[in-house]
């Protein structure tokens, strides 16, 4: 479980997060939703120790974030940021290979290499493995970054808008795969998603944020309701059901 206690965060004196206290359940797929600028990425970065905590505390499986060495945390959680601009000329297989670095620190074993191959296969990248990052499409690059995060083989995965640039088929495949990892391997995964129906269809737990605060949290059926979503995004939405899960109509 990730426990977040009294986390405030400011950037240049502007409050971005206000006294956030919540927990992210272990062994579940959690969706973090909310409008642009709500503070989702900021919260995720704080949990992933990419930003330093200014106040409050975060514990991940009992480990206090500010007291645990960063190398050790890299074996517990892997993170994919929203913006990953890389100017290095790397082949996809090399990029994905860096996902194993926390395990071998420069001396990859046969197991590490097998994991890299597996991650490449998983994201449909085997044929592109020797291409340079600047020679693939946006979605293919996004899949490479995802594969790198997966190769890290951690219990916790924090993914900030992993569906960015992905086509319908790859987006669905990713969500399916995430749900499968949670179900079969007991992984704990948190994803920031904008396409609310992916949260509705696959998440076990939803955290809705707005203006640096948590507006609601709980199972999808409780959070993804008409009044709450209308309030969250300030637009009218209709919520139906499809295969026993909420289906949100928001595009008309």
């Amino acid at each position, binding site marked *: 479980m990730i426990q977040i206690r009294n986390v405030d965060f400011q950037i240049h004196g502007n409050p971005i997060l206000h006294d956030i206290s919540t927990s992210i359940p272990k062994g579940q797929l959690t969706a973090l939703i909310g409008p642009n600028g709500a503070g989702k990425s900021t919260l995720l970065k704080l949990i*992933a120790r990419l930003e330093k905590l200014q106040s409050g505390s975060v514990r991940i499986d009992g480990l206090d974030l500010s007291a645990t060495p*960063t190398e050790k945390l890299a074996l517990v959680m892997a993170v994919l*940021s929203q913006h990953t601009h890389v100017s*290095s*000329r790397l082949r996809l297989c*090399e990029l994905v290979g*860096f996902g194993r670095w926390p395990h071998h620190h420069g001396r990859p074993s046969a197991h590490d290499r097998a994991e890299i191959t597996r991650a490449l296969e998983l994201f449909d990248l085997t044929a592109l493995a020797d291409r340079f990052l600047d020679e693939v499409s946006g979605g293919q690059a996004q899949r490479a970054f995802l594969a790198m995060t997966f190769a890290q083989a951690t219990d916790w995965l924090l993914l900030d808008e992993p569906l960015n640039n992905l086509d319908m088929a790859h987006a669905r495949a990713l969500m399916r795969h995430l749900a499968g990892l949670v179900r079969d391997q007991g992984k704990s995964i948190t994803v920031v998603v904008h396409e609310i129906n992916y949260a509705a269809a696959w998440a076990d737990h939803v955290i809705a944020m707005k203006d640096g605060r948590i507006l609601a949290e709980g199972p999808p059926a409780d959070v993804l309701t008409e009044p709450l979503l209308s309030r969250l995004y300030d637009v009218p939405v209709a919520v139906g059901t499809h295969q026993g899960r909420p289906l949100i109509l928001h595009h008309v």
Partner: protein
Amino acid sequence: MIRPLPVMLAILLSLFVTSLTIGAAQVSLRAAGSDAWAALVLMESRLPRTLAVVLTGAALAVAGTVMQQIVRNKFVGPDTTGTSESAGLGLLLMTILAPDSPVWVRMLVASLTALAGSAAFILLIRRLPAREVMLVPVAGIILSGVIGAVVTFIAWRYDLVQYVGTWLAAGGSSGIIAGRYETLWVAGAAAIAAWFAADRFAILGLGDNVAKGLGLDPAPVMRLGLMVVSVVSALVVVTVGMIPFVGLVVPNIVSRIMGDDLRRSIPVVATAGAALVSACDIIGRLVIYPYEVPVGLIMGIVGSVIFLILLYRPTRPST
């Protein structure tokens, strides 16, 4: 597929042998076994000089790779970010304030001022908008210009302009000609340290967030990188003078051919840098034979041509 490392090693080896055989005195390599004078010329003059050139080229090229990696910009090198000029400033100050200090003290001071100069550059570019890639090299050139101007001004006040001029062109003690290369082993060692940390520099190049996510604290890697770049620049400036472009063009060429997986590419960068500077040194010794042109001058001409070609040629595809 051609493997870059063996090819570069072969080229370097032939340049190495060529460098041993040319010079004002006619010496054949084969005679060195029997002829004491020939052996003396080889061991006391040609070999040290050749080693000095090889070490300089290798270390500068690796320093360039490290610089480009920590700045995440391909258009910089130690000679365009104020590092070399800062080393020169330190050396000039030592010449004025403590002219009798031993050479290692001067090198230490030059390394420290080089470190301060490159740290200033890093602080400067942190404030630039990240997307403006071309501002980084521009900021570096401006900083180099400013520090260079300070060096010139101080030199002018102390009537040392000519001294600084020759020494920047050919090294304070003209280390190449004198074959004073021993201290360059330290620069070579710094380059080897960079190779040991190759993965760390490669990960740093992926951005702070990716590095932290992989459990790598960027700050110490950055510091190590700055140290490597500063030590290499300072030792090179002190012993052989400013050698432009190596740290800029060699990493770019190698990156285009084999990418930025530094563990694989740093050895190639080092050999290619050594080969390029050796070639320029050989040219410098031949154009007005039996006199010679400083290697930095030749490198400036060759390097700028290569740089222009690099700017206009598309990158090579991976397959």
